[in-house]
């Protein structure tokens, strides 16, 4: 009896708070995506050749948990097979959030674009339900002037070495 009550409580908690959290999260994601829209994120492997840039690795990561309701519905869908929509939205939130955090870090460095972006998703085991970690990383291309300003101000672990802070005038990279 107690188990049934607990189950119902967990289900309704998961449904109400989970949906609420998801709605709020999506709203903030859309807002921030609009703010950071001017910073392009590219998956191309080769940097542009016509402009001078400094570069620095930037990353963003997030761990999002599934709620009880999502996990249970996903379990039900799993019996019959088909599209597991509850988890699709969870993964979508995670990916977009990770990219946004990476963009925010690149934006702080005054980067003009982020190159060679890779996304990685891992399932983090927390009890019976799931949580996922999404990591987005890429190379931020900083305009030479902003890069120098950052090299002076930067006290982070990713400090720019002599090579990195030397002005880079591209143009002679062989096309592949």
């Amino acid at each position, binding site marked *: 009896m107690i188990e049934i009550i607990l189950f119902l409580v967990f289900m309704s908690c998961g449904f109400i708070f989970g949906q609420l*959290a998801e709605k709020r999260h999506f709203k903030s994601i859309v807002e921030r995506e609009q703010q950071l829209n001017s910073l392009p994120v590219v998956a191309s492997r080769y940097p542009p050749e016509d402009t001078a840039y400094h570069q620095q690795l930037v990353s963003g990561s997030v761990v999002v948990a*599934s709620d*009880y309701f999502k996990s249970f519905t996903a379990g039900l869908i799993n019996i019959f097979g088909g599209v597991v929509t509850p988890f699709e939205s969870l993964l979508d939130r995670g990916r977009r959030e990770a990219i946004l955090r990476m963009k925010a870090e690149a934006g702080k460095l005054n980067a003009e674009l982020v190159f060679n972006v890779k996304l990685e998703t*891992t399932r*983090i085991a*927390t009890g019976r339900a799931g949580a996922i*970690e999404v990591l987005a990383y890429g190379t931020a291309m900083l305009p030479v002037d902003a890069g120098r300003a950052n090299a002076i101000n930067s006290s982070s672990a990713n400090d720019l070495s002599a*090579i990195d802070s030397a002005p880079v005038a591209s*143009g002679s990279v062989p096309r592949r």
Partner: protein
Amino acid sequence: MLISNLEILPDHRIVRHLGLVQGSSVRSKHVGRDIMASIKNIFGGELQGYTELLHESREEATERLIQQAQGIGANAVLNVRYSTSSIAAGAAEIFVYGTAVELAQRD
């Protein structure tokens, strides 16, 4: 030390290839955090404790990668990749690897 996930750098020449360098780190949070995380799993939402944990872990792995690269006389690590695997409940391994190279400015 320049860390980049690009394979070639504009206006730099690779003088020497020094091979693969790597760094890894396995970390976990204390039980309190794990319990909080499992409660949060009913309600859904971000698990900030774990976000933080993986971030720290990634920094440490990168630090080890840099140390290894410095040890063999590299001044840059190119084509860096991260990978994460959860090895037990509440513990994750972060692995980072890349190619250590010696770069010189192209004239």
